[in-house]
């Protein structure tokens, strides 16, 4: 019994292992399989927290805390930060550039996993000493003793590595400006010189009805002017068009009135007129867009 106990962990730890291992593997699979990279990052963060619990269960108290602070705290936040920078909506394209790459990769992964697990299964891992003796003066104490005696050179090299990484991070993300940005006065002078849009650009919105910034203002003929919406919204295609709203409301009203009065011919004609007007408005907007380009 005693000999057996030396090879075994407590049943409480076994239960913890089996419950959490399932979630850890699920999180790892989620990291690989989720299409949105933000979901991948969250799955990975979950797996890392579970690994921290496993470190604690294995007697690595210092590493368990460091895992939570450094990995789920700092590293995953850095990942999320870069994800936000690069574009949160970016999903992986599903088009395969190399034919059958996904299946070959999955097959290689399964083969590699079988090889690795068979290796561990066949290894003679008979001794299980436990950390009770090594952790006796305290886990942090024991680690510090090793770091500052046996591994002190590696520790110093680590310091050099961290400084290099910090400098590299700054150098790589630094953006060199090759020319001086134009000041407001120079931009105004340029506009006058080129003769384009000397007065301020027209304001967005339709007076007395909609004045939101994403609504294009109307030209005298009822068509919309893209110039009134700021460039960012224009590039994203987030312009709301309300120019047809009043026309549609009028058509609906006419329809209801004619249905009430029992007429049938006139509203159709009226609608046709409206449609023709709308088509002309669209043509007008098209030509205006070309001009702005």
């Amino acid at each position: 019994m005693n000999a057996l106990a030396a090879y075994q962990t407590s049943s409480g730890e076994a239960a913890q292992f089996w419950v959490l291992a399932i979630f850890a593997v699920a999180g790892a699979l989620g990291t690989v399989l989720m299409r949105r990279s933000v979901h991948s990052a969250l799955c990975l963060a979950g797996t890392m927290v579970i690994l921290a619990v496993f470190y604690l269960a294995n007697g690595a108290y210092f590493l368990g805390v460091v895992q939570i602070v450094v990995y789920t705290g700092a590293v995953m936040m850095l990942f999320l930060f870069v994800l936000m920078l690069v574009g949160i909506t970016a999903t992986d394209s599903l088009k395969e550039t190399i034919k059958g790459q996904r299946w070959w990769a999955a097959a290689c992964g399964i083969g590699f996993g079988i090889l690795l697990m068979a290796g561990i299964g066949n290894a003679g891992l008979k001794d299980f000493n436990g950390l009770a003796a090594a952790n006796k003066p305290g886990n942090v104490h024991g680690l510090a003793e090793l770091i500052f005696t046996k591994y002190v050179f590696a520790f110093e090299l680590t310091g050099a590595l961290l400084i290099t990484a910090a400098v590299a991070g700054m150098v790589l993300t630094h953006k060199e400006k090759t020319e001086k940005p134009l000041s407001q006065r120079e931009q105004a002078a340029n506009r006058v010189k080129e003769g384009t849009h000397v007065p301020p650009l027209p304001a967005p919105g339709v007076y007395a009805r909609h004045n939101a910034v994403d609504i294009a203002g109307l030209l005298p003929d009822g068509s919309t002017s893209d110039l009134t919406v700021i460039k960012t919204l224009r590039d994203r295609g987030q312009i709301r068009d309300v120019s047809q709203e009043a026309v549609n409301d009028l058509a609906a009203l006419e329809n209801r009135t004619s249905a009430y009065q029992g007429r049938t011919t006139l509203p159709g004609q009226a609608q046709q007129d409206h449609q023709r007007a709308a088509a002309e408005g669209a043509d007008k907007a098209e030509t205006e867009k070309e001009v702005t380009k």
Partner: protein
Amino acid sequence: MNPVNYLFLSALLFTIGAAGVLIRRNAIVVFMCVELMLNACNLAFVTFSRMHGNLDGQIIAFFTMVVAAAEVVVGLAIIVTVYRSRHSASVDDASLMKL
């Protein structure tokens, strides 16, 4: 439970991470899979440390964490730089040196 199960879990996580590196094409997700592999290795180190009853395995795991933190800083900076010049974080698009 035999603590060897921790090693099996570590092998499984490492395999999933490796498959992810091969399958995914978003550079950031590939990087996350690399992190997963590093973490799986750390779990193996910690388990070995417990099996052999000394703290050397935990020291190695500690150094792995430090190196991983430095690697993340440089790697993400490279990804941001590539994204700035190409407006894409896909590893397929960075193929300028391909024949």
